[in-house]
């Protein structure tokens, strides 16, 4: 089959690889109809995530048709149309039982690698380095899905792929970002990052009852989409001082909660970026926490900073004093997608939201390398690239 393979930093190629097979009784094999490139794939593309091996198949946002099921899968049949969540979760362990699916204790055969970096291992993930298990990903024609009796969500035929594909990752991720803010009536939420996840965080904050949502980015086209499609108020950080603006916009109080939908490859004008970029190049720092620092400083006293941007390693100059002295709460995690898929599917069916609003480019699987380049460089006002069979 054809699959998008990571060959080297900034190099992906669509190659011919063997078709996936059932390895375990609870596996299924899915023929992929739609898949997408994620912002976190760019961290792999840019070489920031360790333990990649030449030939690794990428991709963790995918859906399609079940073509084979293992003998222990009783709730799926060949022919079922499913969306597959990106964390691989067994459903049996203590974490899965608590609905912390991205912390599944049984799905990462390379737990020892993650333990070296993190202390304990989180769940296995499709197509996201050997740290998370070395599972082949879903930017391909087929994928093997472990624990198929737990993860994949059956979706109704009347909803086209465009509307449900993002249940695999970015819609639940944005939603969890907003959910972690514990939004109360009247709350003002600030979102750093108007990429696809940020857009869903904005939309979800409104779904969860926020009074106002303020989006922060530097790309005008992304801010425009945030205003027009997600109803946000916007700030361009290259034009205004974000901290001043947020304070003024909220009557001097600060936003009640701040969502970091940027993560480790944060950008800022000026010295701070130069500092972090240099430290990264010297391998003294692995991640750039510029948006995170700002979110912490901007948040009102006693508020919540919700971190859904992906980080891999270590950061410098973390405003711990601000956090502690102002009673801030940080809530974070890789999205526990399985927890949110069903309720969010309901919202899509009810017409409360049409997730396809983030799609700007549709390519074929063979064009994946071009898709990565476009997505990285934001060419042609690129926001979200979907690859079809």
């Amino acid at each position, binding site marked *: *089959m054809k*699959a998008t*393979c990571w060959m080297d930093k900034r190099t992906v190629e669509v190659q011919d*690889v*063997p*078709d*996936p*097979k*059932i*390895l*375990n*009784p*609870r596996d299924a094999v899915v023929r992929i109809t739609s898949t997408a490139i994620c912002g976190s794939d760019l961290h792999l593309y840019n070489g920031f995530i360790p333990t990649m*091996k*030449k*030939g*690794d*198949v990428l991709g963790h946002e995918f859906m399609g048709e079940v073509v084979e099921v293992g003998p*222990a899968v009783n709730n799926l049949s060949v022919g079922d149309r499913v969306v597959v969540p990106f964390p691989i979760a*067994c*459903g*049996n*362990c*203590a974490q899965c*039982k608590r609905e912390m699916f991205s912390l599944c*204790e*049984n*799905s*990462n*055969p*390379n*737990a*020892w690698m993650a333990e070296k970096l993190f202390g304990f291992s989180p769940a*296995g993930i499709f*197509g996201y380095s*050997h740290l998370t*298990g*070395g*599972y*082949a*990903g879903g930017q391909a024609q*087929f994928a*093997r899905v*472990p*624990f198929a009796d737990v993860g994949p969500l059956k979706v109704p035929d009347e909803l086209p792929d465009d509307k449900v594909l993002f249940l695999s990752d970015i819609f639940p991720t944005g939603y969890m970002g907003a959910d972690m803010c514990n939004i109360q009536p009247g709350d003002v939420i600030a979102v750093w990052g108007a990429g696809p996840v940020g857009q869903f965080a904005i939309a979800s904050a409104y779904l969860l009852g926020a009074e106002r949502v303020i989006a922060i980015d530097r790309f005008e086209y992304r801010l425009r989409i945030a205003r027009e499609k997600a109803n946000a108020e916007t700030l361009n950080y290259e034009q205004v001082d974000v901290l001043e603006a947020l304070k003024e916009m909220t009557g001097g109080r600060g936003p009640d909660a701040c969502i970091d939908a940027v993560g480790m490859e944060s950008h800022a004008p000026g010295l701070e970026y130069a500092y972090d970029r240099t430290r990264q190049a010297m391998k003294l720092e692995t991640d750039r926490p510029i948006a995170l620092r700002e979110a912490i400083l901007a948040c009102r006293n006693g508020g919540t900073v919700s971190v859904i941007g992906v980080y891999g390693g270590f950061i410098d100059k973390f405003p711990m004093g601000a956090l502690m002295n102002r009673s801030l709460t940080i809530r974070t995690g890789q999205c526990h997608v399985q927890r949110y898929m069903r309720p969010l599917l309901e919202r899509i069916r009810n017409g409360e939201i049409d997730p396809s609003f983030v799609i700007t480019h549709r390519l074929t699987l063979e064009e994946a390398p071009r898709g990565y380049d476009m997505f990285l460089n934001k060419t042609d006002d690129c926001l979200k690239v979907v690859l079809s069979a």
Partner: protein
Amino acid sequence: MATREMLETGKWSSGKGAGLNRPRRGAAPGEAPYRPAEVPTDHQAERLARGLGWFSIGLGLAELVAPDRVADLIGVRDSRTTRSLLRGLGIREVMSGIGILTESRKAGWLWSRVGGDAIDLTLLSRAMGSDDTDRSKAAMATATVAGVALLDLRASREFSERQQQLERAMLIGEREPDRQLAAPFRMHVLRSVTVGRPLDDVYRFWRDFRNLPRVMTHLESVQVEEDGRRSHWKTRAPAGRSAEWDAELVEEIPNELIAWRSLEGSDVQNAGVVRFVPAPGNRGTEIHLELSYTPPAGVLGAIIARLFGADPGQQIQDDLYAFKQVMETGEVARSDANPRGGHLVKQRPAQPLERAPQS
């Protein structure tokens, strides 16, 4: 990495409920819970060793960085030769110091200090014979070195004795004093995992040793003899040859522990205990596995090293994870990079395999 003290006592910390020294189910009040042979630690000796280590580093640095000042201090005439000599001694001092401070087996390094003291005393006595030497300063230096040498001697003897004691101590503990093995074990591992299944289920699954190759990726087969007490273990065979040994059940307390050791003529001498403890709340069962083994020399040793890798503790931990996976989910987690599951350092690329591997 588990230190010897932790392995000896099964305790990572003091305090209520800590470690494995929880009362056995059914133990009579006052009866000591089962635990391996304890060797008491001596904090004073540790402090002395540490002080000597820092002293070594301090003195060594002084000799390296300011040999002229040191020469002056001990009354020896400053010259190029003296300085080179002092720098050489300085390197040795620093190395001794680092060895003492960083190694857990300190005896050798402490003895190296004693050797160094002997050299220092010899050099000082020769200096005393020279007219260029300030004899009163040299005498002070000699007295100082002699004093430190006494401390070094004491520390070296204490640590040597303790190390011998530790090596003779058997993992299986006080209850089997007549079963002491002659060979000391070199590798020790202590790891645990919590399995969300009732203790009876977990014990029963482990107790049937034939289940274990399903779970432990480095094992190929286990055959159990009729009497149920002896078993034959065979590892997988990278590069053609596997390692094999016969093991004997030393102790078995149903739903509590299984202790074993290998018999004479085994490829790998090993012994260990696996303990089953109810996890707090409704979390299930804790499995605590202590394993001691001595890697054989030569080809066999290389095979064992290949199988267990540089970090046997991690290998054992991954085996425990695989055990947990099987008990909780019914399967061992497999990925495209790691198709067998378990500990795998040399990974495939994350691509589907040509052929599914046999289980």
